[in-house]
């Protein structure tokens, strides 16, 4: 039910982001989705890639602080109210979304959203019980 996200600590310095993309490119890793959260001093880069192990070891070798984080990828109807339906469902069940971002590619008529929850197992259960489609890691990385 879960997918793994790679999280990377970045100081706010010119060129750091391109060092990450350079390392991944050299390692032959394809980035499937990303989101960057930043403050005035540092940022956290979050990536969904096609090969987690390869990406993590290449980045660690390159001197980056890296960790993998479990996230949930869910299909969201690509129409007005599609995302709202899901968020509303979660709110009613007392689940917090820490952050979320969209996948680059569509899946048929659906958008793919990546969610980071405080209570991941419960969130995934509620989503699937209410008919939302969850994409497991292997399918996600290969999309």
């Amino acid at each position, binding site marked *: 039910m879960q997918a793994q996200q790679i*999280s990377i600590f970045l*100081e706010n310095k010119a060129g750091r982001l391109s060092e990450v993309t350079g390392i991944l490119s050299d390692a032959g890793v394809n980035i499937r989705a990303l989101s960057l959260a930043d403050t005035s*001093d540092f940022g956290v880069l979050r990536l969904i890639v096609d090969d987690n192990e390869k990406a993590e070891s290449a980045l660690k070798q390159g001197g980056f602080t890296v960790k993998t984080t479990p996230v949930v990828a869910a299909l969201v109807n690509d129409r007005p109210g599609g995302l709202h339906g899901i968020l509303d469902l979660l709110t009613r069940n007392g689940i917090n979304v820490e952050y979320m971002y969209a996948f680059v590619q569509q899946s048929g008529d659906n958008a793919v959203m990546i969610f980071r929850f405080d209570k991941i197992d419960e969130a995934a259960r509620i989503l699937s019980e209410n008919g939302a489609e969850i994409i497991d890691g292997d399918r996600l990385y290969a999309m």
Partner: protein
Amino acid sequence: MIFNIEYETMPREALESIQLRRLQATLSRAYAAVPFYRKQLDDAGVKPGDVRSLSDLSRLPFTAKQDLRHNYPFNMFAVPMDNVVRIHASSGTTGQPTVVGYTARDIDTWAELMARSLSAGGATRGDIIHNAFGYGLFTGGLGVHYGAEKLGASVIPVSGGNTRRQVIIMKDFGPSIMTATPSYALHLAEAADEMGVSFRDLNFRFGIFGAEPWSESMRREIEEKLHLKAVDIYGLSEVIGPGVSMECHEAQNGLHIFEDHFIPEIIDPETGQPLPWGETGELVITSITKEAFPVIRYRTRDITSLNPEPCICGRTMARMNKVSGRTDDMLIIRGVNVFPSQIESVLMEIRGVEPHYQLEVDRKDNLDVLTVRVEISDSAFSDEVKELQRLSETIRNNIKETLGVSASVKLAEPKTIARSEGKAARVIDRRKL
């Protein structure tokens, strides 16, 4: 084990009579042979013969680092070059280097003091000593080396640098004692970790660390990461090198000063007045056996206090507490005295923070601004920004609470703060005063 039972456990009364005799001899020789000391004493209106008790020491003028620089390179030597067998020099990072000389007997004295120190730190004849102090003009490497040989231990003269090779040697040769600067010891721990070598599988029992101030919390960190008991050694090239004082591994509570060779005093760094036992101030040392390079009331600029209490190890020599900072390391931030070692202690109390930090001081709109850059560890890293902000907020609050000074905290990527193989550069002061 006590290397020299006769001297190291001597009753104070006997010790003081030896000190007085040796002090008088040193003064006569320095007065006769070194123009600088002759002038100092003459200006103060004191003759060597006026010193009739140890308390008369406080009538003599101080010698400062600046005085040694003014007499660069050899003008402080008290013997002709014929009798000098070794020359060392300070790195000169804070100005012109200071140059020191040794006679054959000085080298022998130093080896004896280092053999005493290594013994106090847990070394025996059967040990293999991994000596990662730098060999060269710096006194650390050769100081430990001669002491180890005097003791009869096996010494690996690995020196500083080439860290990966050091890890292989530690693994293959199985040394049981490490000697290094504390920051380099942690650097070795990181390198070993990267190479998949665990200190748990190595043979180390004791680590003898010195040449830069380090805190109690850094000691705990080193002991945990290197799986050894960490003890503190103290010395400075102007006095003799390492081996001026040494912590015993039994108590790990203060460094025994080898008082049959050095007389310590604590003074108020502002007024120069001697302070009573137990009070904190600047350490001043007079050498009483050195031939080539005697020092009279040398101001070390190290901040500590003296403790004459008997020690569980059996040594009677007074102990100095761990050096808590240097008078010239001290930062004054908006009127508050701040020692880097205090910041270090705060950081080490916080989980997930590495003991690698740097203090940057700027002046903005006539206000001092202190920035603490600190490396984040893998375990503290979170994918959530608010967790990271909470960590830097905790650091900020703890610094404010403990030191009474506001600092801005910058989390840094691992290994981005320069590690030197010798002393760590902790402070960047960009204030133009």
